[in-house]
Structure formats: C-alpha cells, structure tokens
C-alpha cells in the first residue's frame, strides 16, 4: 500500500470509507496514483472498486476520509475537467453523430467550432473511426461504440483517465484489441489511468500496478507491482513469462484476500 504523498500525484486517496445505510461499501482505503501511472482496481463483485472510482470522479461522496485529484478536491477537479471518464456502457448520446459525441465535452466547455472539429478529427484518427464520423451510435458495434466513448474521454487531453470496466461487455477478441489500443493511446497521451476491471489478464497486461480489493467491507487487500517490459507493451507480452508470473501473483492475492468472495472474477 503506498501512502507517500507526492504533490504531483494524480490521485491521492486517504482513509476513505463509503457507507450505504448499514452496508459498508468501502473502508480504510489509502491509495496514491502517480502522474502518468496506470493502476487497475480488481476484485470480486461487491468489493467497492466501482464505488472507489465514482468517489474519485466526484459522482459520489465518501462518508469518511478525503480524496485529492492533482492536489485539489474531487469537486474542483471535476469542475476543472481534470479527468476524462469512460463507463461500462459507452453512454453515447444516440441523437448525436459519432463526431458530435466526441465533441460533446468540448462544446459543453465553450470550445469554438473550428477547435472542436480539429480535435474530433484527431480523436477519430486515434481510435481508427474516421470513416464512421457521420454515423450514429446505433449503427456501430459495441466495440466501436466503446472506442468512441474513449475518444470522448480523451477529447480534452485530460491528465487522468477514469475507466469503469470499459471493455466488460465486449467479446474476448475485441477486448484484447482495445487493450492494445489503450496501451498505445496511454503511451501517446501520458495520462494517468485508474482502470476498474474483473479480468486478471486485462489488469496485468495494462497496468503498472494492480490493486487487489476484497469485499465485505470493501478494502485494499494487496498491491501487486507489475511494470512489465519497460513500458513498451505489445501482444508478444501476452506470452511472456513475466506476464504469467504477474497473473499468478494477482490471482494468489485475490485468493488470499477473500477465500469466500471470488465470484465475479474472471480468471481466463
């Protein structure tokens, strides 16, 4: 568990708890995510990983403790557009074209037409959807919709990206392709990422550190340092010995953390 408090930390979580009535969703959570670092939150259903992400995004407030994003309160960070966010559902506005969906954050924050257009064109290129710019979301596959959602999250060049199981609803092949794409995009944008997932291989492939959580009450059981292959990740890594060792380490951390609560964790 890291508790050092760097001024440049993207996210600093300090003694956070969240209770819903009598249910304790999170308790005593401390976590620091450095700028540019990729951190995954993994754990069985009900371990509070999505709750933690929502707290960081200021979509919910903790009942105890404090969270800082780039040294500010989560509300200030949200209103200053410090982070981009992607959910499990793409959540695109069906009455807007792909391009207009990517432009949404920019137009809400008063970026001019030319600036929006230019940025959306860049983002479309980044996620490889240039030829679908004028399609509507309903005309796209689930994987393509999720890529649009990621492009939208990145449209304002955030230095922090919050992702709540963005690939959870996709098939395994699409998922691996999007993971590789995300690694490439992160290398280009140098954004810090907090990534919630159910999948051990996904967490290991993507992350610098994997935060293993356990349920009832939701807390951090262990933090596994991964940092595979000097930052340059590619598909060859998926067959690397270090990759399998890290997968094993995370799996053991999950088992050790909660012998009873392993439902909902994908070990494939």
């Amino acid at each position, binding site marked *: 568990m890291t508790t050092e408090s760097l001024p440049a930390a993207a996210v600093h979580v300090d003694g956070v708890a969240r209770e819903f009535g009598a249910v304790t969703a999170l308790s005593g959570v401390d976590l620091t995510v450095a700028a540019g670092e990729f951190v995954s939150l993994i754990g069985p259903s009900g371990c509070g990983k999505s709750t933690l992400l929502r707290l960081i995004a200021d979509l919910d407030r903790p009942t105890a403790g404090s969270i800082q994003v780039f040294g500010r309160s989560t509300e200030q960070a949200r209103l200053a557009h410090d982070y981009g966010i992607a959910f499990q559902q793409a*959540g695109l506005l069906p009455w807007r074209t792909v391009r207009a969906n990517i432009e949404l954050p920019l137009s809400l924050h008063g970026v001019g037409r030319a600036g929006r257009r230019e940025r959306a064109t860049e983002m479309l290129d980044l996620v490889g959807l240039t030829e679908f710019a004028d399609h509507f979301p309903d005309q796209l596959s689930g994987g393509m919709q999720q890529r649009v959602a990621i492009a939208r999250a990145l449209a304002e060049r955030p230095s922090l990206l919050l992702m709540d199981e963005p690939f959870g609803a996709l098939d395994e092949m699409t998922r691996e392709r999007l993971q590789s794409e995300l690694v490439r995009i992160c290398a280009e944008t140098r954004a810090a990422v907090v990534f919630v997932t159910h999948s051990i291989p996904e967490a290991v492939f993507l992350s610098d550190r994997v935060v293993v959580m356990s349920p009832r009450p939701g807390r951090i059981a262990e933090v596994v340092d991964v940092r595979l292959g000097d930052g340059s990740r590619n598909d060859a890594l998926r067959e690397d010995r270090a990759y399998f060792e890290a997968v094993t380490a995370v799996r053991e951390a999950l088992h050790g953390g909660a012998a009873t609560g392993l439902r909902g964790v994908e070990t494939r």
Partner: protein
Amino acid sequence: MTAATATRAGLVTRWSHLLAPVVLFGLLIAAWQLVVELADLPAFLLPSPAAIVDEFTAFWPTISGAAVVTGTNALVGLVAGALVGIAGAVVAASSRIVDALLAPLVAGLAVVPIVALAPVLYTMYGASAETGRQIVVAVAVAVPVFVNTLRGLRQVRPVHRDLMRALGATPRQVTRQVTVPTALPFVLTGLRLASSLAVISAIVAEYFGGPRTGIGSFITTAAAGSNYARAWAYVLGGVLVGLLFYLATSALERWGVPGPRRR
C-alpha cells in the same frame, strides 16, 4: 443496378402500402352503397354514401365554416392543454412531492368524463362564447400529454446523468443536451394521441349546448330535423378535421425527433 432495383422494389412496396388501405376503403364504401340500394334501407337507418356526398357538396360552405370553428376550438384547447401537461410533467419530474400531489389528480381527471362539464362551463362563460369548449378540450388533452411527457422525462439513462455530471455540465446544458432529446419522442407521441382526443372533445362538447357554430351543433340540428344524410355530411366534415389534426401531429412526431430515430 442492384441499387436501382432495390429502390424500385422499395417504391413498389411503399405504393402498395399506401394503395392497399385506399382500395379497401373504396370497396367498403361500394359495399355500403350496394347494401343500402339492394336492401332499400330507410334514410334514418343508414343513408347511402352517394346521398351523403350530395349533401356534403351542397352544404360545403356551412360545413367548412363549422369545421373551422370546431378546428379552432380543438387547436386552442390542444395548445393550451399541451402546455399545461408539459409544464406539469416538468415540475412533477423535478419534485417528488409535486409528483405525489399530481398523480391522483391526473388519475382523477383521466376517469372523469370531461365533456360532462360542458353545460356547467357554458353557464360560466356565457351562451355565445367558445371558451367553455376550449377548456373542455384543454383538460382532455392535458392528461395524455402529462403522462407521456413524465414518462419521457424519466427515460434519462443513469449513465448519461453520470456523464453530464462528470463533464461538469450546468443544469441548463443537461436539459438541452440530454433531458429534452430523451423526452421529446414521448412528448410528441402524447401530442399525437391528444390530437384525436382534442377534436372528439370539441365536437362532443357542442352536443351539450352553447353557440350553434361548430360541426357538433350542426350534426344535432340536422339529426333533429330528420336530415339524416346531412347529419352524416357534417360527421364527414368532423372526420376531415380529425384527420388533419392526426396527420399534422404524426408529421411532427416523425420529423421533430433529432438523429437516427427519424424515418
């Protein structure tokens, strides 16, 4: 070539879709005429279509004038009732207390036969004013518009709400970008349902008295004077007004929705 064939096939289907009901309607009218002639039915039982059309053309100036009066009443009531229904739904969607207060009232309004109020309203607003009829229409219209609008406002998806909050959108931006586009198709469907109701209420309200100006008044007058074919001709005028309202609101429903849900 295949595209051209496909377009032609599409056109054929579209025409057959349009044509089929027209042909059916024509056959029904022909059957009606035939039955009246062969069975030699008395006019008070069922006048023949030909007789109705004769009366319709002969009394066209009166019928069209009456249709304008009834149509105006229906339109004024429709607009007023829709505004009240939409405003009520917006308030009910934003406040749980108001919703709890309004729900039984709306349920009550939906059950009460509104046109029964017409005679009371005539005495309130004077025998020569159309106001009573317009109020009857407005009350009848407000209910379906309210119900549909409220349902539409509740369709906003949690993920969209989270997204707009994460983006730090102002309440006004949330309304403009998410709430209105989500609710709009429901509002327009409510308007389409209400449009038929508006015309029916406007006509039926005239049965209960008031100035003898609209379609409903003339139907009662003609029927009371044993001019059965003429009464039917006025009914035909009422059908045309109803059709006009329905087509206008259907077009609005179809074209007023942004994005791919058109067509």
